[in-house]
Each structure stands twice: as C-alpha cells, then as structure tokens.
C-alpha cells in the first residue's frame, strides 16, 4: 500500500544556487499528486529529493525533513533503501538496452539479491500485468530486448521495473511527454489504476494531464510552492493570481 509523505521546510541547493525554498506540503497516501510549473521552477528537484536522488549530484544538498509515514527518509534509512521504496519513472524510457524484457523488469529484484526463479517469474508477470503490458509481451519475454519495444511499451516496461521491487511511492517525471496520444492515455489509465496501491507523484507540463489524473496539484514557481490544493480548485478557480496567470498562459 502507498504511504503519505510529509515535507517540512525543505530547501535545496545546486552549488550556491538555492533551488527550493521552504517547501511544506502533505502528499496523501494512495492518491495521485501532480506538480506543475514552468521549466526550472524546482519541481524535478523536488521529486528528486523525495527519493534521495538529489544528493547523487556532488554539488547538490538539501535541508529539512521528509517523512514517509513515520520514516524520516534522510535520517532513518539509507539512500538505497529509500530508492527501493520510492520508485521513479523518467521522461524518456530508459530500458537496459542489452537485457531482455524479463531481465529489465527483474533487474531491481536481482540487484536486491532475489534469485528464486519462481518468485522472479511471478513478480515479472505481476508487474507487467500491473503496467498493462503483459498481454503484449508475454510470448517474447526472454526473446526480445527491452529496447526493441515501442516508446510507449518501453515506458510501461520501466513502470513494471519500478513496481517489481514493491515500492510504496511512485515518482513520475513527465512520464508521457515523449509518447504519442494513445500511449499517453495508456499511461494515464495506468496511473488511475495504480494509485489505489501506491502513492503517486507526477511532474507534468501537460496541464490537462494533471487535471485528468491527479486529485491534488501543486504549482511551483521560482523554487517556491505557490499553491497546493485539490486539482479541481487549481484548474477552475485557483486562489493565487500567479497560478491563474500560469495555467491560463498569461506568462511564461
């Protein structure tokens, strides 16, 4: 099951550049939460703080508290443990090109030391079914490489790979921006189904997508969280003039 995320006074820097300023918000469990804002506003940095990817850059640092349930992710667990519990899907599908579909999906489990063939088989099947890809690839699991799939299939395979290690949170950084409308709607349907089991945070430039998939939406601008509210409120009658100007295209 998904877990809620509490963010308190989060600040982040790249070198001397202060990229996130005092972010406070609660991301509810088993909901999809969308983050919107212009390029460079800090939303990707924010999600990278949620799975401790931010600190992989040697000049980057962050302060503040992020709790997943009761777990303080910067104090109570290792980055490796956090990244297992917080899966991530990126803008462009990133399959391991030389691996089969099966090995792509199983890679996280294998890295975590799972060797039992039956468990691996079951997990690969379950994950591909959850990612709505099973029917399309079940006959070629070990024959075809992950890179031989279409872009939309690759992205669903990457989602299956993230799900295989049984995370509680799924971060999606523009997961459909490189996909055609049909593949995009498959990803959106998937988000809709997955949120009953996972907490989903999706960064998107496509505001209609945010409106379609997320219950809550946060608007970032210049490293600050300007407004966080129900998606309905944000897209029909936002409280802050800056949010309204952004979503109606009056700046940017």
């Amino acid at each position, binding site marked *: 099951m998904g877990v809620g995320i509490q963010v308190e006074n989060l600040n982040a820097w790249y070198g001397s550049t202060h990229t996130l300023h005092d972010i406070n918000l609660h991301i509810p469990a088993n909901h999809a939460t969308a983050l919107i804002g212009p390029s460079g506003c800090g939303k990707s940095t924010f999600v990278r703080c949620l799975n401790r990817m931010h600190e992989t850059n040697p000049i980057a640092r962050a302060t503040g508290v992020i709790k997943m349930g009761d777990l303080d992710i910067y104090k109570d667990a290792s980055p490796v443990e956090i990244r297992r519990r917080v899966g991530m899907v990126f803008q462009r599908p990133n399959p391991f090109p030389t691996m089969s579909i099966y090995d792509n999906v199983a890679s996280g489990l294998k890295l975590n030391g799972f060797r039992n063939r039956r468990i691996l088989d079951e997990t690969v099947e379950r994950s591909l079914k959850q990612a709505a890809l099973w029917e399309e690839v079940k006959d070629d699991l070990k024959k075809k490489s992950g890179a031989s799939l279409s872009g939309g299939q690759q992205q669903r395979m990457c989602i299956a790979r993230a799900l295989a290690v049984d995370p509680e949170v799924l971060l999606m950084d523009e997961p459909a921006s490189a996909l055609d409308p049909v593949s995009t709607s498959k990803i959106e349907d998937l988000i809709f189904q997955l949120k009953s089991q996972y907490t989903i945070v999706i960064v998107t430039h496509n505001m209609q997508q945010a409106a379609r998939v997320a219950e809550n939406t946060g608007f970032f601008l210049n490293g600050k969280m300007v407004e966080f509210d129900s998606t309905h409120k944000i897209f029909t009658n936002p409280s802050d003039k800056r949010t309204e100007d952004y*979503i109606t*295209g*009056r700046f940017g």
Partner: protein
Amino acid sequence: MRVKFHQSLDDLKEKLLVMAGMVEQAIQRSIEAYRTRDLSICELVLRSEPSINRLEREIDQMALDLLAMEQPMAIDLRFILSVIRINADLERVGDQAVNIAVRVREMGAFANIDLPVDIPKLASLSSAMVRKALQAFIEADADLASSVLKMDDQVDEMNDAAFYALSSLIKERPELTPQSLNALIIARNLERVGDHATNIAEDVIFWVRGADVRHHTTPA
C-alpha cells in the same frame, strides 16, 4: 504568452456584445410598439429574429472551437462557459421581444383602452436589469451583477400585481378579455426577461469570482 488565444477570447466577447445590442434593441422596439401600437415596429422586431438566431449559433461555434482547440483553464474556462450560457439567455430575451411583438399585433385588432397595468414601467425595469447585467459583463464587475439579482423581486411583484388587476378586470368586464389576456402575457414575457437578466448576472459572478450563486446558493 498565449496571444492568439486571448485575442480569440476578446473576439468572442465582442461578438456576444453585438448580439446583446441586437437583443436590447428588439426588446426596446417591442415596448415601443406596445406604447404606440405601431405595427411596423412589430415587423422590425420579427425581422430581427433570424439575425439574432444566426449570431447565437456563431457564438456557440466560436466557444466550442475554443474549448476544443485551446483547452482553457480557470478564469478563461469560466469565461467561455459563461458566454455559452449568456448567449442562450440573450437569445431567449430576443424570443420574448418577438412574443411581445406578436401580442401587440393581436391587440391591434381591438380598441386601445387603458388597462390597469403599467407595461412601460415593467418594461423599463426588466430592460434596466438586462442593461445592468450586460454592463457587469463588459466591466467584469461582480458587484454590479449582484445588484441585478436584487431587482428581480420588484419585477416579479409587478407581474403578480398585473395578474391580479387584469384577472379582476376580466371578471368585471368580460368584453375586455382579449386585451387583458394579451397584456397579461406581455407582463409575463417581461417578467421572463428579468429572469434571463438574473441568469446573465449570475453567469458574470461565476466568471469573475468562480462562485455559483444560482438558485440562491451561497457563494463559494
């Protein structure tokens, strides 16, 4: 900046105001026809209806295109929804003008007698509601729109008073039934004009504030 889109919203507003101008003129003319019993003015009202109907379709099409092509959000989305609704209400006001003109034409067959109902006063009140609601739309002024809502009770009261006065007259002087019934229907038409003005004002409030105040609901 979405320059083209925002220019299209301005064009939509301008077109709705052209429609509003035609509808206001139709209602003024129908009342002028009642006052003077001039059947040529009735004809002018009847002839304006196809143009109003054509504009209604054009405005709906423009709004539909913007919804489909631009996926508007927030205040822009509320604006387009309001325009669609106001468009329908204006067209109905135009229909009321036609209904009044038809009644006046019928009344022309009978003697022009003094009836116990002040149609011009009722007309000036309901027209003022329409004008004020449209002014609120032009200026995006939700306070002005709210003031329109308060005027509706007065129009309703005048319509009720007309009903009682004219039904008494019919009882007392049955020979005046045709004139009385026509005047009664005209009063009812004008009361409907006030209702449409109320709807327009509510749509302005929805557009500007994002609050749904229809059916006496509390603003969000």
